[in-house]
């Protein structure tokens, strides 16, 4: 499924030139210019286009035919494929960065996908909606139903997102598979970064989404 299907982030327009999404700008800022990048679940290629303006050699994988065709029409190197099944075909160390933007929650095996990201790329950048966000918690606590937000509007029975997690959960997963967090950011409901010095529990409560720059850990 395309990113757009999984997570319409219509509310996050930034007003920047080209109207790039706030989370895309944040992700792009984590990428060194001139590096080689694979964007897994690249949707219609907005992030790849932003990266291209910064001299990045970008490639993409996208599940939806419409998304791929729009990307190729934009001149982007994008192939139709599935993050769950196709990453195994990529050799080790093929990219400087592998990006998984707002797609983790739609994969069948997030842990395997994450491991593959850090095998193919020397670094991985992962962003995902935080299910620990206070609005989500409130809907379940008070409303007694599965949370829905402006950015995640689908009902539980027809959403493509099958593996939601909180920022805390994700950090625990990274620890479990020995992935090092080089940088971590959380964006609030309006796409604004939260202040860096805040403790984890604040991020987990007030971050609408998390963005992480990851590298392989030292454990062998």
């Amino acid at each position: 499924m395309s990113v757009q299907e999984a997570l319409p982030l219509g509310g996050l327009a930034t007003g920047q030139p080209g109207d790039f999404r706030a989370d895309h700008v944040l992700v792009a800022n984590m990428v060194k210019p001139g590096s080689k990048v694979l964007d897994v679940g690249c949707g219609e290629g907005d992030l790849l286009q932003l990266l291209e303006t910064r001299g990045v050699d970008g490639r993409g994988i996208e599940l939806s035919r419409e998304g791929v065709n729009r990307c190729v029409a934009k001149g982007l190197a994008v192939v139709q494929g599935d993050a769950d099944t196709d990453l195994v075909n990529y050799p080790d160390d093929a990219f400087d960065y592998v990006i998984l933007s707002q797609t983790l929650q739609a994969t069948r095996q997030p842990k395997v996908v994450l491991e593959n990201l850090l095998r193919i790329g020397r670094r991985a950048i992962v962003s995902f909606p935080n299910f620990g966000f206070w609005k989500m918690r409130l809907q379940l606590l008070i409303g007694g139903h599965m949370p829905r937000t402006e950015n995640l509007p689908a009902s539980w029975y027809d959403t493509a997102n099958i593996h939601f997690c909180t920022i805390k959960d994700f950090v625990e997963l990274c620890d479990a598979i020995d992935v090092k967090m080089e940088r971590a950011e959380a964006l609030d409901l309006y796409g604004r970064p939260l202040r860096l010095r805040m403790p984890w529990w604040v991020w987990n409560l007030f971050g609408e989404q998390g963005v992480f720059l990851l590298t392989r850990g030292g454990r062998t």
Partner: protein
Amino acid sequence: MVGVQSIPSPAITADERSHEVDHPSSHVAQFGSEQPLRLDCGVDLSPFQIAYQTYGELNADRSNAILICHALTGDQHVANVHPVTGKPGWWETLVGPGRPLDPNEYFIICSNVIGGCMGSTGPASINPATGKVWGLDFPVITIPDMVRAQAMLIDRLGIDTLFAVVGGSMGGMQVLQWTAAYPSRVFSALAIACSTRHSAQNIAFHELGRQAVMADPDWHHGGYADRGIHPHRGLAVARMAAHITYLSDAALHRKFGRRMQDRELPTFSFDADFQVESYLRYQGSSFVERFDANSYLYLTRAMDYFDIAADHGGVLAKAFAGIQTRFCVVSFTSDWLFPTSESRALVHALNASSARVSFAEIETDRGHDAFLLDVPEFLDISRAFLQSAGKARGLTANNA
């Protein structure tokens, strides 16, 4: 007695066709004894000739040349009226002013493959050693042989690096062979509805076609030309069978269903009662007007032998190791001759080789033939791919 309609004799004579074989109404590049074509079968073919068409102008730095590789029964007449059939070029959907391959922007070359019958040396050509038609004395050729001959033509035209090599089906196989054999000479590659190897099912269909040709009593073990005849029935049957594989059930049903041809009730005979039958008979009989039966045997064989991975120790990615060529691979959902899974295997190998590759599957019910038809999504992607590659190559519109 049960009525029987057989396939009609072709309207064009063998003589008229053979004129195009040796004296094509297009450019011809002659290669003399000092430049033999080294064939995979071990034979040096010499002398030989390649017939080709060009459209547009080569720019000053010779960077805007596009080579189009034709499919099994295609030829060099990609965007001009065909000299034998009088019909428009076979790829006018893609090639022409305002089209994705615009002669105002690119220098477009299309050659008749070696082994063909529209002016390049093949089994229908005169063997200079005997003064007679080659027939089955012609050596067996392969896709790499075709590409080697094309490379000699490109050399002759003074072009070092092709901006793009473009082709579908057998043409797509040539595109892949070009990139594997001459990676530094291909800036971008558009491979459509093709595969890196011919599948068992495809070989099986080709064998059916060849057997149909060889079962025709007029074939005479390939020696029909000396007798002034052509095994048109066998070739027409081969074409009919092949044509079915180029379409899809859905497309055939949409086009014909079970509708009758010029009648309300069945004739209780083996006449072409159904529209689909007379359509196939028409396809078969019009094909034999422009194509040589032995050429069909040789070209289908070339496709059967094609297997890029086998030439690289069985590892497809090795064929493309370190390649700088920009690839665009396109498949069609209803193509059962070269299904998407084959394109996907190619894309995986290209990814493993770290190549810059795009891949799109176009949704259509028109089958393998979709690449020849006006499928807007496919044309848009082709245009976009070439434009972005052109930007990377430093090409500007109209060679300004």
